[in-house]
C-alpha cells in the first residue's frame, strides 16, 4: 500500500512543480478535451497544428512591443489566431470553399508574416522557444492563464452547446430555422485559439495539440452519443495527464512528450479495443441473426 502511495501520490505531495504541472494539465483536459471532440466531428482534426503556426506574427509583435511579457505575447497570439480563424471561416462561408482549404491558405500566409517580422527585428531570442514553454516550468501567470481559459471554455461550451451541435450536425437546417449566422461556431473557434495559445504558453505546442486531439480521437471509438464521447475524451485526457506526469517523474524523461505518448497509447488501445468500431470488436463480431424473431431492439 505504502509502495503504491509513494509511486502515485508522493511525487505530487513533495514537489510543487509536479503539483503545478498537474493542475495545469487537469485544467487543460477539462477545457480542451470537449473542444477536441467538436474539431473531430467537424473534420478539422488538423486545425490545432495550423493555429499553432498562425499565432506567430501576433506573438512576435507582442514581443517587439513589450519584450518578454507572457501577457503581451499571448494577447498578440490570440489576436493573430482569431484573425486567421475568422478570415478562414468568412472566406469559406462567402465562397463555398471548404474550411480546411481556407484555413491552410491563411495560416501559411500568417506563418510567413511571422517569420518575416522575427527576422526583420533581428532578435537573438528564439520566439518559438519562449512561446512554447515547458510543463515543468509553469509559473503563476501561466497557471492562471490556463485555469482561467479552462473555466471560460467550460462555461461558454455549456452555453452554446445546442447551437454548436446543430451547426456541426446539419448546417443547412440551422440556417433554415434561423439558428445559423454561425455565431456559435465563431465563439467555438475563438475558444480553440484561446485554449491553444494559453496551453502553448504554459505547456508547449505538442502538449496543447496532443492533449486536445488524441483523447477526442480515442473517445470516438467508444460511443455513438455525443455527450458520452465528450465525457470519455475528458476522462482520457485526465488519465493521460496523471499517468504521463508520473512516468516522466519516475523514469526521468521529458514530461510533455510523456503525457502525449500516454494519450497516444490510449488512442492505439481504442483503435484495437473500441466497442464501436475497434478492430477486435470487428474480428469478434457475433454471428448474424437468421430470423427476424431473434432481433431484440
Amino acid at each position, binding site marked *: 500500500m505504502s509502495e503504491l502511495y509513494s509511486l502515485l501520490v508522493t511525487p505530487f505531495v513533495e514537489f510543487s512543480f509536479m503539483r503545478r504541472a498537474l493542475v495545469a494539465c487537469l485544467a487543460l483536459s477539462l477545457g480542451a478535451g470537449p473542444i477536441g471532440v467538436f474539431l473531430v*466531428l467537424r*473534420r478539422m482534426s488538423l486545425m490545432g497544428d495550423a493555429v499553432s503556426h498562425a499565432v506567430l506574427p501576433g506573438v512576435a509583435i507582442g514581443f517587439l512591443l513589450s519584450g518578454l511579457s507572457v501577457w503581451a505575447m499571448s494577447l498578440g497570439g490570440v489576436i493573430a489566431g482569431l484573425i486567421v480563424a475568422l478570415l478562414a471561416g468568412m472566406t469559406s462561408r462567402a465562397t463555398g470553399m471548404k474550411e480546411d482549404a481556407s484555413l491552410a491558405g491563411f495560416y501559411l500566409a500568417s506563418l510567413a508574416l511571422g517569420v518575416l517580422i522575427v527576422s526583420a527585428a533581428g532578435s537573438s531570442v528564439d520566439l518559438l522557444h519562449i512561446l512554447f514553454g515547458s510543463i515543468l516550468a509553469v509559473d503563476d501567470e501561466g497557471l492562471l492563464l490556463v485555469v482561467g481559459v479552462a473555466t471560460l471554455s467550460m462555461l461558454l461550451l455549456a*452555453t*452554446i452547446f*445546442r*447551437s454548436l*451541435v*446543430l451547426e*456541426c*450536425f*446539419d*448546417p*443547412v*437546417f440551422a*440556417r*433554415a*430555422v*434561423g*439558428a445559423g449566422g454561425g455565431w*456559435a461556431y465563431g465563439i467555438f473557434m475563438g475558444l480553440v485559439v484561446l485554449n491553444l495559445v494559453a496551453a502553448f504558453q504554459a505547456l508547449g505546442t505538442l502538449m496543447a495539440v496532443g492533449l486536445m486531439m488524441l483523447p477526442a480521437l480515442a473517445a*470516438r471509438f467508444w*460511443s*455513438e*452519443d*455525443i455527450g458520452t*464521447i465528450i465525457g470519455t475524451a475528458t476522462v482520457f485526457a485526465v488519465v493521460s495527464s496523471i499517468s504521463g506526469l508520473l512516468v516522466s517523474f519516475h523514469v526521468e524523461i521529458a514530461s510533455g512528450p510523456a503525457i502525449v505518448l500516454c494519450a497516444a497509447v490510449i488512442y492505439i488501445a481504442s483503435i484495437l479495443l473500441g466497442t464501436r468500431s475497434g478492430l477486435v470488436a470487428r474480428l469478434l463480431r457475433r454471428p448474424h441473426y437468421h430470423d427476424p424473431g431473434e432481433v431484440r*431492439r
Partner: protein
Amino acid sequence: MTPAIALTDVVVAYRRLPAVHHVSGTFEPGTLTAIAGPNGAGKSSLMKAIMGLLPMSSGRIDTAHVSPRHFAYLPQAPEIDRSFPVSVLQTVMFGAWQRTGAFRAVSKVDRECARACIANVGLDGYEHAPISALSTGQWHRALFARLILQDARVILLDEPFASLDERTTDELMALVHGWHRDGRSVIAVLHDLAFIRKHFPQTLLLARERVAWGATAEALSDANLATAKAMTDRWARDGERAPPRHHDHTGHAHA
C-alpha cells in the same frame, strides 16, 4: 394561418448564368404543388431562394410577413454526416427549434411530441438508436419526423422520395396528404410525372423560366413538356458559351 408565397420576377443566377429566370406567380395558401421540370431547370434553386438560403439576383418573394424560418424545408439529399453521434430522438428534437431556441429547456410536452412524431413515421422503438444504424429509408423517415415536429404552415420538400422504395414512398406521401388536409401549403420538387399526376393537384413546370403553373393536368400537357424540354436544351447548348448580352438587368446573362 397559412401564408401565400408570391414570386415577383424572381431571378437566381450562378456566375451570371440564370438558374431561375424572371419567374412570377403565387403559391396560394393550403395548396399542394409539385415543381416539375428537367434537370437544371432551377427547381432546387427556386426552393432555396424561397427559404432565403440563396440570394436572388433580382425580383421579390413575398411571404405575407411570415419569416421563412418558420417554414419547414427538406433539402435534396441533405449533406448530413450520417456517422455523427446523435440518436434519432435527438435529431427529431431539433424540429422543436422555434420553441426551444438555443437556450430554452426542452419541455416534457416537446419530448412527448417528438416521440409521437417518431411513432408517426413508423420508427417507434428506434428513439435511442444512433442515426448511423438506420437504413436510407429509416433515415428519411426520421427526417420526416423532424418535419412533423416543426409543425410549419408551409413545407418545402426537394426530391423527398428519391432513392426510396415504394412502401416508404407511399407511407411518407400519406403524411404529405395529411398536411394538405390540415390546410398547410406543401411544395415539392419532383421529377416523376406519373407520380405528380397521381398525387399533386397543382404543378409549376419550370425550365429556368415559368413554362406553366396551374392544375396539374393542364400544366403537364404534351405541348408544355415539349416547350420545357426545348428551353432546357437551348440553355444547355448555347447558354454556357453565349456571349453575354446586356439588358437593363444586371447580374445575369440572357440567352
